[in-house]
């Protein structure tokens, strides 16, 4: 008499063999394979029926995909670089986590954007970030999120490299759209004009956003409503090597005089700046 395990094994093998046949042939196969063992036949048919009822994807998706990460690398209350007190995690961008913090030196709110851990000790990446922060903070305009500085600090024995920038206390256009907020035609026009003004300011410095979308436009409410473009060139983790794209998304290439929007609109072209701070990019 076959032991329980031997029987199970036989049943398993007949079941597996049956599966390799087209569905129409399975029953006949099981009849033959089980021969004079009605118990085995019952068990195989039970397995087949269960297999048939089973979700195609059952167990195919790894369990980890049911999870997400809560909390950021820094906890509220952490003091960074002896000056910035973390308030809360705002979100995660392409470049890293973004926090709201309190600047204890100036008693102001700031936004802090951490550089991804794997880039923090990479000299090539850090040099690129330095160059691009010089560029980005040269754009001073009410419709462009002001970037302040690039700093580093220690936390938990780890080096943290981060940017400080203007904290914008408003919702992204994306969030407003998702909440089905009704915007009047006039409000939309105001946003478009603000964004155009911000882009124009950037273009005059030879910077293209490259990733403009509702997620990157924040609306500041109140009596001085304005739309502000964020993640200006500091968002896309683009390919690192050999391309004309920088890691942070600012486009390097032809000198700004070839694509100032004023030329597109038919007004007089501006002469290029006499000394361009981004000359070093072109020689790469």
């Amino acid at each position, binding site marked *: 008499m076959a032991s329980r395990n031997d029987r199970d094994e036989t049943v398993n093998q007949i079941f597996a063999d049956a599966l390799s046949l087209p569905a129409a042939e399975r029953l006949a196969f099981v009849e033959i394979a089980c021969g004079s063992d009605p118990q085995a036949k019952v068990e195989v048919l039970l397995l087949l029926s*269960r297999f048939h009822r089973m979700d195609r994807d059952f*167990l195919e998706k790894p369990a980890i995909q049911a999870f997400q990460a809560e909390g950021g690398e820094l906890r509220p209350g952490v003091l960074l670089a002896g000056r910035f007190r973390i308030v809360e995690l705002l979100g995660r961008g392409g470049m890293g986590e973004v926090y709201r913090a309190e600047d204890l030196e100036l008693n102001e709110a700031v936004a802090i954007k951490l550089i991804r851990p794997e880039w923090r000790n990479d000299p090539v990446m850090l040099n690129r970030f330095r160059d691009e922060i010089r560029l980005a903070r040269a754009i001073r305009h009410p419709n462009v999120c002001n970037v302040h500085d690039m700093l580093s600090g220690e936390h938990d024995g780890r080096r943290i490299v981060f940017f400080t920038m203007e904290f914008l206390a408003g919702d992204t256009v994306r969030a407003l759209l998702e909440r089905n907020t009704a915007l009047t035609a006039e409000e939309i026009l105001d946003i478009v004009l603000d964004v155009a003004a911000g882009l124009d300011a950037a273009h005059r410095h030879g910077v293209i956003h490259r990733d403009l979308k509702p997620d990157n436009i924040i609306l500041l409410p109140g009596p001085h409503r304005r739309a502000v473009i964020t993640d200006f060139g500091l968002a896309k983790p683009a390919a690192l090597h050999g391309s004309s794209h920088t890691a942070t998304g600012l486009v390097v290439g032809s000198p700004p005089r070839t694509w100032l929007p004023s030329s597109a609109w038919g007004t007089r072209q501006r002469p290029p700046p006499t000394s361009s701070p981004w000359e070093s990019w072109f020689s790469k």
Partner: protein
Amino acid sequence: MQGELTRLINEWQAGKPGAESALFDALYKALHDIALACLRGERPGGSLSATALVHEAYLRLRKSSRIEFVDRQHFLALVARVMRRILVDRARARTAGMRAANRVPEFFADLVVRSPQEAEQIIAIDSALEQLSSISPRQGHLVELRYFAGYTMEEAAGILGVSARTAKREWQIARTRLMGALDGIAE
């Protein structure tokens, strides 16, 4: 920390008593952190693939230490066991309603299951898997490797020491039997 893991792995490979459980605990913390980093998008490629996570752990260990992996497959099997424990623990934490506002979490950043339903399913599968493993250890092991560690069929076959074809057959049997055990639990 890396030095510690190296030492533990070497001791485990040498067969020192108690080494496996010490290594298990150390891997638990390390894998939890790596999983979080992957889910937070701090790994290249963006979203997490379970296999990528485990390989990440393996690469980190190999890179930062001079571990001679005598038995890579054995190590990957151990990692899968650790992953299973981590994920089931995290799923239980959610369903037990332990995420009260003023409770200090064990790790300040945490793996959180997306919904109570998915948490229930993971816990149920873990339970059913115990049953399956007691009857068919190889099938149980296969499910642990593929579902909890997310290894591919080929990788799992390598760890089990069978052909990919055999693994595929066993996989269908294991899934079907596990489904039966789950129904049994539900009743």
